[in-house]
């Protein structure tokens, strides 16, 4: 997906992290016996219940923009990120929204984890949505949303070197 992000592809991991923080498991307070029911996925669940942010007739990229998931400080990277989401193959943008809508119907909803995978071979060039434990250090089930990404080719890459 370097095609859309171009030189801003260095920000992809931070943009994915931004999503992962906003959809993170409910934080545990300093008092280990008390779960704090705010922040992360609980905040998202409240926003969804109040404002219906994710909808089956609205692509995820539009909801992401409302939630500021494109970051604050780099307008070009933000716009390119939303374009990348809009152009996800096989209507992936809407597939993500649909999966989130289903997730928020669960009580409690699963935290969500975004990551990426290689878009090649062609069968992998799609958004892959699964459920599982993506982080070995957290025994926590997530809704996992994996975006297809193709590596950016460096200028001149693939050309034979002349003698």
């Amino acid at each position: 997906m370097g095609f859309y992000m171009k030189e801003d592809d260095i920000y992809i991991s931070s943009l994915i992290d931004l999503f992962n923080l906003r959809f993170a498991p409910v934080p545990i307070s300093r008092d280990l016996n008390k779960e704090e029911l705010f922040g992360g996925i609980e905040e998202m669940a409240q926003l969804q219940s109040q404002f219906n942010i994710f909808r089956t007739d609205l692509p995820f990229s539009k909801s992401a923009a409302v939630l500021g998931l494109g970051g604050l400080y780099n307008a070009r990277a933000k716009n390119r990120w939303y374009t990348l989401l809009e152009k996800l193959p096989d209507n992936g943008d809407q597939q993500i929204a649909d999966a989130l809508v289903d997730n928020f119907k669960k009580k409690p909803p699963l935290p969500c984890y975004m990551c990426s995978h290689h878009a090649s071979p062609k069968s992998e060039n799609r958004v892959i949505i699964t459920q599982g434990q993506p982080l070995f250090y957290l025994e926590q089930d997530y809704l996992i949303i994996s975006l297809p990404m193709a590596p950016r080719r460096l200028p001149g890459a693939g050309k034979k070197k002349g003698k």
Partner: protein
Amino acid sequence: MARTSKRRSASGSREETELATVHAGISDYYSAKVRKFGTTPPGVDWTCLPTQELRFVQLLRMCDVTSPFSLNDLGCGYGALLSYLDRYHPASRIDYLGIDLSPAMLRRARRLWHNRANVAFAQGSFSQRLADYSVASGIFNVQQDQPRDVWERFVAVTLRRLHGTSRRGFAVNFIDAGSVARDGIYSAEPAQWSRYCIRELGATTEIIDGYGLREFTLVVRRAA
């Protein structure tokens, strides 16, 4: 007697100076924010529109939006509450006054809402008029480098003034002290300011929490 009165007046003047410094710090902070991010939620230091509006939902719970009322919005920023009311309570009849310390914020608010009936803005740290209700969202959060005792005197004075300018009641929000502490951000236990309003203002209070944000809303009503 004269000495006591002089001492009291000196301490009063010290408090006024202290409060003026706090207000100036707040004004500078938010002026810088709105210059950087414009009339958007980050321009008033919120993450995004939905979280900003989720706070409005809680603050307005004390108001009956089906009947006309007057509302003071202290720390109004660029008047985001008006957009919220337009979208979710378009039939409401509200006489609105937005008050803010930041001149840069108010310039933008006036530009944004200049054609709107029953809407006015004023610069200051409290409202000069009595309204049915007052709301204040996020005004106690950004303590910056003020000592905690100074900041809490500012909170107490502001709560007193909100009470004094609200005929029926007011609502404010605080970061919950149970959340992870961050430098420069003020947080409080819900009971602390609830007790203050009951004891010092003779009001009744209600705490709203569990709405997904790391904070609580304190609703203060005049005792019947």
